[in-house]
């Protein structure tokens, strides 16, 4: 890794000043110049220089380097949500591209800092990731790569089973079995906080009582009570309840933490890229580019904005929607009056000269995530203008085909893809199912069935963690079914017949 060359340092200062003058608000941003190999490596590690050892990073590296070497794709920019933000510039890019990336990065940094869905992310994640790496390496030394890797693979199969909204609601719920990493910290805290915080003092008192009188109430009974609140955060549930060793617990919690750290980036992909693209375009065209650079800029810019027929380019949709909002709020094209107007001509020439566009997009950037963004601001006019369609698998021709261009269908499909990451929502509802300590999960069915082979494989993984039979209530072949796995066999029960 190299320090930035002098010209770029000057540009960076200039652009950062410019961004600030446009009311973007960001953490300090550290830029580093990397070779493509380093870039591929960092990208494979999800943006971080150090992660715990795992083959899937090697797999990403393999794909990224191959597609780079075959000239198919090139990673232009990489920025990490951290305080300070870290951003990487690719050595060998043209000067204009570097400026574009710097401008783009400031857009992202502003978004990371101000969008409220990022408000709960760890801003010292760089350190945290390195810490995770050290811990996992230690477990590998102790228990062997094979064992630890297998366990990590198990957890990764469940990585999507977190509750993406929970960081914003249930702060008061503490993980009962504290993660081993924090237990030391907590102990220390307890000692120091004893006098100042009576509640904590009481906590430890109650805990110690339980330990002292194990006959009165068996701790297992305590944790395995029949009625629990449905828990979407399956990983948290397992940390609290599954019979696991300490190092295993620590690994699950590492994976869970990282999943939560990355979750907002998935929840705001369209907005985040749209926002950054909006600003790089604005800054480049209005302030930064010289006359002789504008063509090169446009070339790169249009490359990132291109849409494939089957693809869904978040950059493109994001920037277009952002601009659409700005125009609409500048012209006052919103609210009751606008919605109820049927006169197309009047709508076309509608201009209330409100000039609220800029203000509005800053508000959107602060409060929205992709689901809300699409839900509120995707208009029929926008879909027609951008030629959106819904495609579906046609069983007769065995191909994906354009299904419809109906606005409602498009919007529903988009929203469905975005809700919960496009992942099925699965929750733990009972951990003493049939009074046999079996784990019961339900899939909140929303019209699309799970992929059956993957479902079964995942259940075997779940079994490895839970060590008792695992059941999943879902829908298979259009009828509700209960699938259970007891460690050797799968049993399907059709719930229709049972009822």
């Amino acid at each position, binding site marked *: 890794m190299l320090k930035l060359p002098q010209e770029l340092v000057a540009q960076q200062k200039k652009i950062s000043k410019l961004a600030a003058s446009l009311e973007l608000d960001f953490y300090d941003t550290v830029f580093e110049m990397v070779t493509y190999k380093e870039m591929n490596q960092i990208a494979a590690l999800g943006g971080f220089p150090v992660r715990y050892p795992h083959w899937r990073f090697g797999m990403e590296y393999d794909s990224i380097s191959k597609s780079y070497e075959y000239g198919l794709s090139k990673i232009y920019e990489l920025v990490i949500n951290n305080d300070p933000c870290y951003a990487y510039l690719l050595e060998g890019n043209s000067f204009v591209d570097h400026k574009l990336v710097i401008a783009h990065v400031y857009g992202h940094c502003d978004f990371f800092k101000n969008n409220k869905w990022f408000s709960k992310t760890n801003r010292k994640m760089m350190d945290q990731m390195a810490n995770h790496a050290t811990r996992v390496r230690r477990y590998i030394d102790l228990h062997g790569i094979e064992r630890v890797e297998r366990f990590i693979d198990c957890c990764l199969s469940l990585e999507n089973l977190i509750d993406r909204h929970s960081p914003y609601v249930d702060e008061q719920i503490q993980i009962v079995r504290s993660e081993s990493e924090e237990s030391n910290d907590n102990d220390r805290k307890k000692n120091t906080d004893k006098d100042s915080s009576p509640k904590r003092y009481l906590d430890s008192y109650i805990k110690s009582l339980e330990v002292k009188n194990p006959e009165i109430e068996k701790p297992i009974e305590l944790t395995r009570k029949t009625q629990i609140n449905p828990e979407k955060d399956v990983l948290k549930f397992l940390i609290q309840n599954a019979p696991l060793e300490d190092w295993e617990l620590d690994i699950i919690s590492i994976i869970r933490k990282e999943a939560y750290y990355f979750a907002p980036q998935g929840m705001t992909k369209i907005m985040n890229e749209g926002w950054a693209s909006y600003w790089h375009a604005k800054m480049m065209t209005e302030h930064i580019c010289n006359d002789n650079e504008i063509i090169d800029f446009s070339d790169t810019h249009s490359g990132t904005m291109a849409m494939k*027929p089957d693809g869904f380019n978040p950059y493109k949709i994001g920037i277009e929607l952002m601009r659409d909002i700005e125009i609409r709020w500048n012209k006052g094209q919103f609210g009751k009056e606008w919605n109820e107007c049927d006169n197309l001509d009047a709508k076309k020439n509608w201009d209330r000269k409100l000039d609220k566009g800029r203000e509005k997009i800053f508000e959107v950037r602060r409060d929205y995530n992709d689901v809300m963004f699409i839900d509120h601001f995707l208009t029929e006019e926008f879909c027609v203008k951008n030629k959106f369609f*819904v495609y579906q698998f046609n069983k007769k021709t065995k191909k994906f085909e354009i299904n419809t261009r109906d606005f409602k269908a498009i919007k529903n499909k988009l929203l469905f893809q975005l809700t919960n990451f496009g992942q099925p929502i699965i929750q733990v509802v009972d951990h003493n199912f049939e009074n046999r300590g079996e784990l019961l999960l339900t899939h909140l069915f929303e019209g699309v069935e799970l992929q059956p082979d993957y479902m079964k494989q995942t259940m075997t993984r779940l079994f490895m963690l839970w060590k008792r039979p695992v059941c999943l209530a879902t829908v298979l072949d259009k009828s509700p079914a209960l699938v259970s796995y007891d460690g050797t066999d799968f049993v399907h029960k059709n719930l229709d017949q049972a009822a």
Partner: protein
Amino acid sequence: MSILENHKRFKDIVKGRIREDFKKFVTQDEMIGKSENDYVKIPVSRIKLPKFIYGAKNQGGVGQGEGQEGKEVPSKGQKAGNSPGEHQVEVEVEIDELAEILGKELELPRIEPKGKKLVSSEDKRYTNISDVGPSGLRHFKKTYKEALKRSIASGTYNAKDPMIVPIKKDFRYKASKPVSKPTANAVVIYIMDVSGSMGEEQKKIVRMESFWINTWLKFNYKGLDTRFIIHDASAKEVDEETFFSTSESGGTLISSAYKKALEIIDKDYPVNEWNIYMFHFSDGDNWSSDDTNLCKDIIKNEFLKKINLFGYGQVESKYGSGQFIKDLKKDFEEEDAVVCSPIKSKDEIVRSIKDFLGKGR
């Protein structure tokens, strides 16, 4: 660098060296997708960990572009939700590049065209100068020089006012010069056994292997000819499509195919002008030892004199592997031009290609 550690671990898993139970998650179905417009799609192998996910075919998605309802959408869409590093799974590569990669991966030697049997083809290069020609090809520098020479020689040149006016005979033009370029001609004859015992899986293997062989040979010979022969108890020449799609049933008389191949060679490919390759895929269950002897005679007396390389690939079918490969090996062990390669399963294709092409003939 830690990433290299991870990379190695990943490669080891993909190759099945470690964690063999894991191989079922490796997505790398066929080595070739479709070759369209000189591009080939190579799926990059990935390991897909099982998760609770929606079935892809139920899902569909939103796309953008022109088209009526019912129009096909090329390849399935990517989901909008994007965890770090959801990259494309397919890589498109130009065929030539592919051949180069293939050559590099398998350490294949570049092929030496046989003997001096080179056919030269004429090509034009504009490297000559002529005093006549169209004004579009006028050579400015040469014309100027001529005019300068003439004006100095005739004494009209004035160093203080160095103006040169060319007249008609000063003009020079670029002209073409015929260049003879040696080219090597090559033909590949693929022969496949389509008797009842060759199943779908076997044909898939043959298809993949011949695709790669073809890619490599095409890279080495521009304008490669390919011919296809299928046989059971009798042989016939077919086009490429039929070659890969027919399933006949019946007995196996390998000699019928060899006779047919000989016929094609004698008719269309004079031996002194052509590099001839022949690849024969079968499950090796020949009808009788008499026929096998006949085959061996043809190879010894005809093929070896005419052909650069005779490759015999024996695919293992559900009825096991036949005797033919052993018979061939026994007789032609010493011959460089005859290569026998057993192919037990899809995984052995790469090794088998190396067997066939590794000698650089």
